[in-house]
């Protein structure tokens, strides 16, 4: 069937009559040639127009493909999955032989369970692992549409509760309809009659010391219920009571609270009901802020953090600065907790002692919320602590890479990579390899050994990710790209790969050499002699167990690390892996430490050093590089940075590359100005608190956050036309800019997407005029549970709308439902013709030019063609045939004429002879003028030519010539 995708362009066919009319101007051209020119032009134009109309042929296909989309989000209890299983077991049995069936499991993202196959059989369980915290129906439909076989009748069967909280299924349903794919919808139903939940917890964002304020708990229930409500402040119970909850949304339960201590305070509410099928939605969180004295959090990463931190903590307290000090475990994991402090001091703390998320949180807190950050040196800090390419490095005024030195100390790290048989295991393996690489400097050696294909693909051997196996890092981008292509196979034994790594390490010049083995423990344990030999070469071996198949192999790996003089790790979740590898990679970065006595040198004028003329000597530091735009207040005698500071976003950060304890700063801790120096450093870095006294309210509902600011001055007047700018820090510590609009006198509002569980912190600045002093506005809200748990029943109406929008049906009788029913129009597979039409038109253009510009004698050409090209005898055209007949006729006429003339001539000659003979007989024997000439006999032509107009020029007969010659000879003889 012919189809035009752009039928409007067919109007251009009207040009063809114009061509025919215009052809009249070619009257002077021979008719045949004229018609050829016109025909070519018409065909050319026809081809062009059909190409522009995007002509295609559509074949009808009768095979059917059905995709089942299984909603596996958290909102659906596991018991409700049975309905999906039943449909998957029974429905495919109704498929015809030529039909195919595919299955997609989805929640936040879709996962292809089975691409369309004939004779589908439900394997008993859904094998795809999906992250269920969100429901994105649209992405599943999109995947199905993309994965359908092209030449089939197509149908999507959506089995879901319809509680969408990401994407737009309705929009995608319309797209599906456009593609001719109906979405039949089967609701998933579950029993949630006893569901009791806390919709939200509301406290004022700011409060005053000991001032009473309302804490409001919003509750709702499917039916009348009772529960025990507990309210916590900073983890401690502040209220507890039995509550009656009516069906539906209840009026807020109000409690009065007071706070005496300054800082951020987090409230949480939990309601308990034993019969509640969904305890996940029984909690809510909120936080409030009470203005307080600046507070400093000091984290020390030394092996004895309490003792090490005591030097600085005591000094600061002596200067009346409030300090909380401790080890890495004290570092907050949430932004509201970090907001309690105004400066964070990381003393000798390795990057590996905190998670990537914590680093990102700190960086955002500095940049967007004005937190102060001070990093103090030690053997675990700066480059030696693995801060290369981390968010913390971004915030600090120094770089971890060293560029001002020509000869640099370096290390060598080899990763032995065994395939990880956990979901996305190989992706994780690559990520942690990249995390290790990030820690290294350009001078360090790095390599990844694994079992993989050899260069020629003929066998699989222990090999390196790149050649030579250990390479100086240099430009990390190339190595990162190579790591992404690494495909480790299941290693049978550790021995060969360990040997390979050890051999390469023994051949490079590096101060520290280290191997990290990553494995699920499957390979055969190494021979002890192999590990001992590696250790004896000064190479250390660490081991990381990832999803081990047996507890026994965990012991094996631990033993290997023990012999190898390294560390053993057994992370419980894959998210811990990058942190472990960052820490392991720093083993080779200890070369950045310089332990040598030096005197600090003042480089630039700095407000931090006000009042200090001379400083005591120090015994060591970590080599770093001062960033451009940073202030290098102090340097070492070796021209390396010692004290550097700068402003980063709204916050200020300081780097002190030596330490603040009795290891490198033994002279300092006894120095009388030790406390004053550090107090000045800390005070310079403190968060600037110029908070506007506006009422801020932040709420989250249905995956959407709402920020409301009521701006009123001291006299109670609305403040209008404020210009707000700033961002929201999301639970994953990414910032998103928010647009704040004035919605009423003195009221400003902003919305933001809030689908992730966790805290959302708003950080805004408000200006009344472009040159006015900015005022800070902060607020925040916590989403305690996933939007998946907001609804307690399937959204049937929404599902019906999806079905309607796509042209599908709402399945109410699953038992008799046949997704393979042929009640859809046959599928048409388009075969586009326009490229060929266009090609034909292009090929005709030179033909058209040729016909118009070149005159060709077709008879000549055909004759030439037949004789020269085809090797045939010349062919006669009809004209030639006529000419030939005419010439034959003429020849015949000429012959007849000649015969008549000859006859007449003979008659004349005979008559002449008769007369001559008569005269001779009358005169006797008088010689004849024809003497000696043969007398023509009967039937012979006379040799004597009678010149007549008819035979003039005709060749004389041979006999005549010889006669003439003889006559001539006789005449000459007579003259003699």
């Amino acid at each position, binding site marked *: 069937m012919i189809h035009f995708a752009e039928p409007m362009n067919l109007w251009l066919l009207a040009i063809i009559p114009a061509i025919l009319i215009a052809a009249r101007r070619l009257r002077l051209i021979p008719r045949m040639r004229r018609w050829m020119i016109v025909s070519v032009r018409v065909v050319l134009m026809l081809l062009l127009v059909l190409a522009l109309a995007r002509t295609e042929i559509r074949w009808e296909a009768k095979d059917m493909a059905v995709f089942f989309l299984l909603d596996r989000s958290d909102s659906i209890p596991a018991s409700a999955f049975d309905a999906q299983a039943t449909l998957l077991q029974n429905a495919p049995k109704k498929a015809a032989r030529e039909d195919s069936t595919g299955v997609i499991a989805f929640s936040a993202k879709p996962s292809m369970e089975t691409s369309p196959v004939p004779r589908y059989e439900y394997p008993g369980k859904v094998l795809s692992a999906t992250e269920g915290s969100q429901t994105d129906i649209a992405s599943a439909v999109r995947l199905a549409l993309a994965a359908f076989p092209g030449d089939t009748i197509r149908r999507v069967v959506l089995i879901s509760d319809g509680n969408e909280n990401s994407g737009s299924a309705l929009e995608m349903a319309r797209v599906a309809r456009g593609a001719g794919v109906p979405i039949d919808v089967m609701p998933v139903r579950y029993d949630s009659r006893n569901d009791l939940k806390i919709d939200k917890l509301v406290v004022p964002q700011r409060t005053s010391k000991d001032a009473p304020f309302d804490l409001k708990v919003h509750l709702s229930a499917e039916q009348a219920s009772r529960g025990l409500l507990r309210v916590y402040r900073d983890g401690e119970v502040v209220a507890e009571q039995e509550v009656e909850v009516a069906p539906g949304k209840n009026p807020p339960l109000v409690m009065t609270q007071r706070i005496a201590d300054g800082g951020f305070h987090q409230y949480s509410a939990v309601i308990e009901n034993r019969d509640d099928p969904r305890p996940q939605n029984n909690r809510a969180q909120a936080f409030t802020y009470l203005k307080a004295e600046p507070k400093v959090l000091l984290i020390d990463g030394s092996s004895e953090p309490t003792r090490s931190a005591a030097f600085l903590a005591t000094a600061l307290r002596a200067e009346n600065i409030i300090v909380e000090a401790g080890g890495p475990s004290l570092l907050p994991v949430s932004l509201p907790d970090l907001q309690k402090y105004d400066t964070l001091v990381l003393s000798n703390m390795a990057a590996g002692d905190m998670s990537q998320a914590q680093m990102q949180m700190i960086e955002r807190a500095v940049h967007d919320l004005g937190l102060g950050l001070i990093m103090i040196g030690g053997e675990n800090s700066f480059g030696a602590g693995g801060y290369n390419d981390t968010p913390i490095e971004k915030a600090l005024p120094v770089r971890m890479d060293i560029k001002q030195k020509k000869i640099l100390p370096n290390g060598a790290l080899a990763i032995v990579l065994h395939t990880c048989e956990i979901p996305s295991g190989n992706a994780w393996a690559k990520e942690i390899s990249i995390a290790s690489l990030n820690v290294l400097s350009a001078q360090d050696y790095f390599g990844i050994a694994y079992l993989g294909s050899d260069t020629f693909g003929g066998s699989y051997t222990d090999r390196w990710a790149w050649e030579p196996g250990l390479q100086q890092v240099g430009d990390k981008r190339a190595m990162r790209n190579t790591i992404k292509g690494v495909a480790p196979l299941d290693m049978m034994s550790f021995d060969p790969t360990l040997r390979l790594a050890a051999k390469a390490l023994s051949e490079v010049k590096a101060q520290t050499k280290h191997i990290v083995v990553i494995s699920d423990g499957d390979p*055969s344990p190494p*021979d002890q002699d192999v590990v001992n030999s590696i250790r004896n070469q000064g190479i250390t071996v660490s081991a990381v167990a990832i999803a081990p198949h047996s507890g026994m192999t965990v012991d094996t790996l631990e*033993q290997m690390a023990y012999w190898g003089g390294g560390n053993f790790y057994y992370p419980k979740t894959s998210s811990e892996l990058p942190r472990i590898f960052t820490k392991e990679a720093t083993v080779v970065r200890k070369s950045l430490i310089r332990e040598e006595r030096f005197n600090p040198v003042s480089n630039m004028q700095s407000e931090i050093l006000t009042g200090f003329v001379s400083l005591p000597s120090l015994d060591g530091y970590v080599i770093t590089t001062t960033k451009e735009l940073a202030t290098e207040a102090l340097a070492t005698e070796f021209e390396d940075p010692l004290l550097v500071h700068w402003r980063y976003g709204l916050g200020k950060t300081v780097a002190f590359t030596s330490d603040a304890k009795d290891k490198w700063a033994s002279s300092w801790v006894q120095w009388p100005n030790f406390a004053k120096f550090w107090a000045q450093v800390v005070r310079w870095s403190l968060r600037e608190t110029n908070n506007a006294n506006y009422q801020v309210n932040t709420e989250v509902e249905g995956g959407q956050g709402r920020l409301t600011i009521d701006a009123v001055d001291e006299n109670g007047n609305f403040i209008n036309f404020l210009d707000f700018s700033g961002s929201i820090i999301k639970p994953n510590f990414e910032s998103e800019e928010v647009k704040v609009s004035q919605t009423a006198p003195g009221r400003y509002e902003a919305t933001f997407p809030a689908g992730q569980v966790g805290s959302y912190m708003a950080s805004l600045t408000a200006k009344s005029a472009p040159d006015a002093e900015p005022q800070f506005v902060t607020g925040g809200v916590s989403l305690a549970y996933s939007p998946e748990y907001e609804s307690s029943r399937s959204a049937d109406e929404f599902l019906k709308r999806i079905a309607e929008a796509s042209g599908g049906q709402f399945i109410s009788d699953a038992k008799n439902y046949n997704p393979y029913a042929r009640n859809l129009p046959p599928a048409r597979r388009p075969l586009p013709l326009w490229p060929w039409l266009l090609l034909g038109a292009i090929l005709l253009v030179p033909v058209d030019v040729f016909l118009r510009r070149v005159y060709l004698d077709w008879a000549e050409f055909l004759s030439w063609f037949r004789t020269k090209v085809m090797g045939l005898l010349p062919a006669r055209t009809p004209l030639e045939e006529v000419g030939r007949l005419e010439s034959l006729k003429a020849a015949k006429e000429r012959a007849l004429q000649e015969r008549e003339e000859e006859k007449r001539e003979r008659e004349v000659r005979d008559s002449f002879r008769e007369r001559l003979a008569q005269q001779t007989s009358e005169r006797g024997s008088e010689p004849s003028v024809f003497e000696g000439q043969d007398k023509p006999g009967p039937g012979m032509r006379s040799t004597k030519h009678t010149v007549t107009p008819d035979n003039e020029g005709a060749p004389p007969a041979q006999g005549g010539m010889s006669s003439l010659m003889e006559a001539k000879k006789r005449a000459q003889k007579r003259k003699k």
Partner: protein
Amino acid sequence: MLASGLVGCGSGEDAADSKSIQVVGTAGRQPGQFSKPRAVAISKANEIVVVDRTGRIIVHDLKTGEFVRQFWLPKWENGTPTGISMDPTDDTIWVADTHYHRVLQYDHEGNLLSQFGEEGEDPGKFVFITDVCPDPDGKMLWITDYGRRNRVMQFTRAGEFVREWGTKLFETDDLQRPQAVSISPDGQRLYVVDTGNCRINVYTRDGELVKSFGEPGLEPGQLNMPQDLALGPDGRLYVIEYSNCRISTFSTEGEFLGLWGSAGNHPGQFFTPWGIAVANDGTIVVADTMNHRIQIMRHPAELAWTPGSNQGAHQ
């Protein structure tokens, strides 16, 4: 993995190879598809029995290659079996459930008949049980295990521990990751694949090492991570090499006879294969693991074997 019968002889060209090979299956979880098939055996009923990474025991017809049925193991999230054998007496299926440290016995319909084993390195317990092979009379079971110690173990059919031998922890010279075991038709010789050391160890029933053959390498006659072994009907040993992606054949005395196959994804090529079985009529079946398929070679004599020391794999 044990079968009896005769294998044909001779060698052929590559073109003949492709005609002699049937590739069965594509990647997937549906009937007729495989996901990393790791072990294969052939039943007396001429059925190919395969276990793959999706935790299925999949049965295909040996003659046609067609899918017949499938059933699921009780658990497979930790990992899947690497060894499967048919019982010579009743044709039941013995499974070395590697990552669950136990032996499973199934009938052909997937009914679990018996099981035994628990995790541990003590005698009678398993760390990573790799293969189980019944005696010709079916009374005893021979089992290989690694993870802590590398060992060969003997159990009664009922699962009672009899004896074991092998290495201590972190010793690998004598045995390193024994991955498969087969027994001679007379029941007197055990052929153990010493994967980590790239060789085949031959033991008596008492654990005495009779001989050991093969060495690490890529050349003909050398082995690169041999993974499984089948005793052919001609009494030859068919060894599948994980890292060399080929089949090497040896006499029971250790003489290299020939090799066939290469790395790749065309018929006759393998991608880290784990399992091999030889049928009574000489048909070879390979679990072509990372190509997610099995390959059936019905006329081994027509394949282009690279001959070994006695000028041909098949005489």
